[in-house]
């Protein structure tokens, strides 16, 4: 191999404690005949699936993030593209859905625009998240880690 290609970079084991616990804490053979040793200091995070509560904090944080963007009305053409005005009209549920169904299509656009970027600061974030724990969210990363995974994704249907 003379060409330096991107490698698979397979780590021998998960790096974060949460991921390690996910493998050994509540998976595998259970022998009820024996009392397990007391488990101490193991984060409740991994012991119980928590209910996902989409928090207002998160929404505000996202809105904040949008506001911090340097959003220039470079295509200001027809004024607002519906979204904000719809939102402000209240009873926005349906309208918003409508406004956003067009956005479904733009998910691809989003993806490609992201793909073309290469951010330097990405690594920092990664280290943060590789612990498998929350990043910035104040209101609880609530992935039901370590529990039987909720199989509600579409792709699971065809199994």
């Amino acid at each position: 191999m003379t060409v330096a290609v991107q490698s698979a970079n397979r780590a021998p084991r998960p790096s974060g404690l949460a991921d390690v616990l996910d493998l050994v804490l509540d998976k595998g053979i259970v022998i009820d005949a024996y009392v397990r040793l007391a488990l101490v200091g193991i984060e409740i995070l991994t012991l119980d699936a928590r209910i996902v509560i989409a928090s207002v904090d998160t929404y505000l944080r996202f809105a904040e993030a949008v506001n911090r963007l340097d959003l220039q009305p470079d295509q200001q053409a027809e004024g607002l593209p519906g979204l904000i005005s719809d939102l402000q009209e209240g009873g926005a549920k349906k309208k918003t859905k409508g406004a956003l169904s067009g956005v479904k299509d733009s998910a691809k656009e989003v993806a490609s625009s992201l793909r073309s970027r290469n951010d330097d600061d990405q690594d920092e974030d990664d280290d943060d998240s590789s612990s498998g724990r929350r990043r910035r969210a104040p209101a609880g990363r609530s992935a039901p880690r370590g529990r039987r995974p909720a199989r509600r994704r579409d792709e699971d249907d065809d199994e």
Partner: protein
Amino acid sequence: MLYIYGVTRAGQKRPSIDGLGEPSGPVRLIDSGPIAAAVSEIPDDYVVHDEDASAHLQVLIGLLGDGPVLPVRLGTVAPDEAAVRQDVLDAARPQLIRGLDGVDGFVELHVDADDNEADSIAAIARALNLRPLDPTDFAARIQLGEEIANLLVDYRRELAEEMVAMLRPLSERDTARSSINSAEDPLLRWAFLVARKDVPRFDQAIVAVRTKHPELSIRYAGPLPPSHFVDWQPAESPSEPTDSFQAQGAWGWN
């Protein structure tokens, strides 16, 4: 007291490492018939800590190098060798053998991916052609944030599905380790059960995924014990739920 890590085939090579505990003892195998339990001595009053999870996993990974292993849950102990033979190995021998057969030649691989949240939000905002909101309009901010959150979830799901679709054909089974239900959930946490011989091909597929998505941070780990795929039900016995069921039913799987 004996701390139990997992069940293997008898005659499998034991990992030459110490187990968990303070003081820790060498890991050894206790055979009974065709199967064996990997154990190490542990003080009677030992309390398991976070770090022990790591040692437990390390032993399982060591065992995995030489054959199939069924992980036993963290913190499981037995009083002595006889108990390990009778109550652990002999009590569920057929199921254990079946379990070992089921994962023989397979390993678990983990693929995790995260996007850069700020970049994703920015891209979504640009795709929507959003303009800044009046910061004093609290309700509008919440609604905007909620919609961004929904779009972020859609975006992540789409990416996760795409990545799983690229990897699934190379695996025997796969399962989510965490799902995307809200914008706080990670993009991808997935476990794949992969034939050992297919691991290099899976590596290549990971390279392809990375190449296709340089914007994502992708972590890849293994080979790991098949913790997410040891889910066979213990016995066919309870066809007649007699009193003896309780006596025999000391076993469970997850």
